[in-house]
């Protein structure tokens, strides 16, 4: 990790113009050290990711540490207004991901008698590897009462249906669904919040916030260059995640193929984004004996090795007999969600821990904001979640309090706006 190299400041970058190659994953940008404790060596040499490219950034991009996620309802019925906003968002996202300001003028250079086009809390902060990722929810195509507001109902992918109710879900409509989502990930929470705040601001009159979520401490790994982080139960999470380096697996499990859905060719090269807000009953979990915790998860707490032995990346042996039944219990989390038990289905997860203060009886209102990118939710997510809801020992300590599904269009080419394939 380098320190003290050229600092990239927002002020210095106004107007953008930093040329970057747009490749999925670790896009080449300029080298600038951030004097932080970031342990991810490969990630540390990159300080910004290109917004434009074949895929949207923020999917296979090495997971940053902070998240601000927002789901919006579209309040207009005017197609052109919506397209106008998408264009505006595209430009703003491009500027902000390069460390620039939200609007073209910036926080402090504009006329004194109008509000600045950037709110200013990110002045002086580097790009912080910000990525901004957009997705479209089922209700954008047809409202719950059946209305095709923007003439795109016939382009709705078949798989883009609201997720079903799963056992243990506490349906909270105020934390679920949405017409459009924006995921902003960065190393600095202020940068992620700044991005969402400004995009939301631009949307007033066209969109309104339905719900949002802040996250910290990524709970999965999207690149082999990263170490596996821990969730709030203290266990390593996402060991078996699809990684950026696995081109074959990404094509098979994450990216929508060109023949996947006839009616929605616009989504080719995109993905589906599942979000689930999972509250953990932290205080109760903390009273579980260590041995039980390990049995519920199916892995050791220290190294994250499967109970059948080896190290973190050793394949679990689900057959290996233990003293009473298999050594990895039949309801252990690692078994229930393992691809071998789910027709080989894998996901690319990039969830975050969250703590939204305390709940009304003094417990931590905390858990995991689960985010997964999949090629088809019907085969890659729903069956796995159903398995988990019915047989996973961890369910005893989880409450699902929010749920949403979005179709994430492919990347934005030069001169295009996000979602142009759908609206153009």
């Amino acid at each position, binding site marked *: 990790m380098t320190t003290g190299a050229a600092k990239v400041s927002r002020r210095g970058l106004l107007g953008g113009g930093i040329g970057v190659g747009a490749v999925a994953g670790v896009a080449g940008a300029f080298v600038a050290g951030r004097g932080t404790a970031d342990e991810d060596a490969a990630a540390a040499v990159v300080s910004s990711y290109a917004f434009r490219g074949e895929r949207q950034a923020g999917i296979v991009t090495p997971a940053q540490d902070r998240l601000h996620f927002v789901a919006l309802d579209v309040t207009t019925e005017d197609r052109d207004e919506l397209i106008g906003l998408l264009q505006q968002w595209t430009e703003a996202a491009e500027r902000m991901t390069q460390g620039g300001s939200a609007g073209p003028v910036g926080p402090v250079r504009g006329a004194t008698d109008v509000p600045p086009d950037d709110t200013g809390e990110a002045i002086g902060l580097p790009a912080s590897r910000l990525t901004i990722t957009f997705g479209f929810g089922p209700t954008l195509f047809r409202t719950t009462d059946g209305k095709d507001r923007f003439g795109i109902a016939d382009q709705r992918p078949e798989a883009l249906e609201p997720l079903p109710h799963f056992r243990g879900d506490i349906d909270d409509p105020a934390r679920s669904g949405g017409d459009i989502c924006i995921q902003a990930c960065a190393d600095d929470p202020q940068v992620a919040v700044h991005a969402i705040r400004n995009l939301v601001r631009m949307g007033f009159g066209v969109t309104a916030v339905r719900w949002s979520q802040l996250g910290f401490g990524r709970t999965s790994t999207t690149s082999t260059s990263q170490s596996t982080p821990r969730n709030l139960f203290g266990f390593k999470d996402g060991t078996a995640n699809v990684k950026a380096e696995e081109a074959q697996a990404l094509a098979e499990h994450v990216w929508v193929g060109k023949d996947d859905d006839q009616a929605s060719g616009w989504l080719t090269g995109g993905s589906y984004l599942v979000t689930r807000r999972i509250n953990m009953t932290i205080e109760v979990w903390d009273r579980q004996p260590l041995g039980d915790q390990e049995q519920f998860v199916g892995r050791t707490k*220290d190294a994250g090795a499967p109970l059948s032995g080896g190290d973190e990346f050793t394949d679990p042996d689900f057959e290996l007999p233990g003293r009473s039944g298999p050594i990895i219990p039949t309801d252990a989390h690692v078994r229930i969600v393992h691809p071998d038990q789910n027709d080989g289905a894998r996901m690319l997860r990039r969830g975050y821990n969250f703590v939204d203060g305390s709940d009304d009886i003094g417990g931590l209102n905390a858990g995991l904001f689960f985010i997964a990118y999949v090629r088809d939710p019907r085969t890659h997510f729903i069956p796995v979640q159903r398995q988990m809801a019915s047989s996973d020992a961890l369910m005893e300590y989880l409450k699902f309090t929010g749920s949403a599904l979005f179709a994430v269009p492919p990347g934005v080419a030069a001169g295009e706006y996000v979602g142009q394939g759908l609206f153009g």
Partner: protein
Amino acid sequence: MRKTLLASLATLAVVPALAACTENASPDSESGDARTLAVASTKDACDVSAKTAPAGTISFDVSNTGSDVTEFYLLAEDGLRIVGEVENIGPSLTKTLTVTVPEGEYVTACKPGMVGEGIRADFKVTSSDEKVTVSADEAELIEQATNNYRAYVQDQTSQLLVKTKEFVELYKAGDSDDEARALYPVAREHWERIETVAESFGDLDPKMDAREADVDFAAGEKWTGWHAIEKDLWPARAEKYAAWTPEERATYADDLLANTVELDKRVQATGTGALEYPLDAIANGSRGLLEEVATGKVTGEEEFWSRTDLWDFQANVDGARIAFEGVQPVLETKNAELAEQLTTRFTELNELLDGHRKGDGFVYYDELTKDDVDQLAAAVNTLSEPLSHLTAAVVS
């Protein structure tokens, strides 16, 4: 909790006597402490880093360097009585056995492949300043605890059966809903007192006690049992609820009764089908019941339609206290301080609950103020924290 009892029943059915608490080695346990020993278990060796240790609490960090699943035992001099054991150690993993042992002769054993005699060696515990006493009639105390708890569970399911019959009649009759509503929380008390045992029957529990949110309707699951009937009796919080026809009522009611009969049958079984109540299962059950309170009752989620959560709350606490009191004589010989602390905190929680009594029962959950709920939640946490150490303490 659903898991606790089942798991313990299965484990302890095979290894009798006292299981010690086991835990994973901390990565930096090389403290040079005479009471911290390293054990390397391979296919054909069981190397213990020392042949002797001073009396007191001794830890064996057992590393499995072989390719089979292994186990480690500390046995009494006779090579029969198990003083402590740690099982299910996968290849390349390390687990720690922590036991408190008095001066004397012992035998260590690794069991690669989990079968046979194991690889044994003599082990000596020398005298030390630490006083370690083991009560001579401990075995008797344990047997007593087991028998008492079994009798308690059997008594509760038989009462549950009687009240469920009565409830089902009232409900089916259709003209006595007020009486059915009054009996509902009272009958359920017998379920809630032994909830951890009832839940260990994975086939019956979802049919009898599932809440609406627990059901995966999209997968074609049906919602049956107490809470489905509860909604039909208290539809006030439901949107556009269509009341059941007399035929539907009969179907759900008969189903509940049939499942209750089955539950009672299994609990009363003797001989080979009899349930076992090893000490740690009883202690875990106590903790599990308090967890039920913390996750469902204190939050008002359990009785969403009837708001009779406090009846369940009290019943869970009763069940937890009975289980605790069952193992209390054993606990007193091992950790009198914990026993006293738990007694006090059970009393405090009960006093708090007493403040919400009304007539023969309790106020409805909606009648509690935010402050009341906060106080109850805090008292549950206060009790649950020491309770989470009960199992380890009684089996140590």
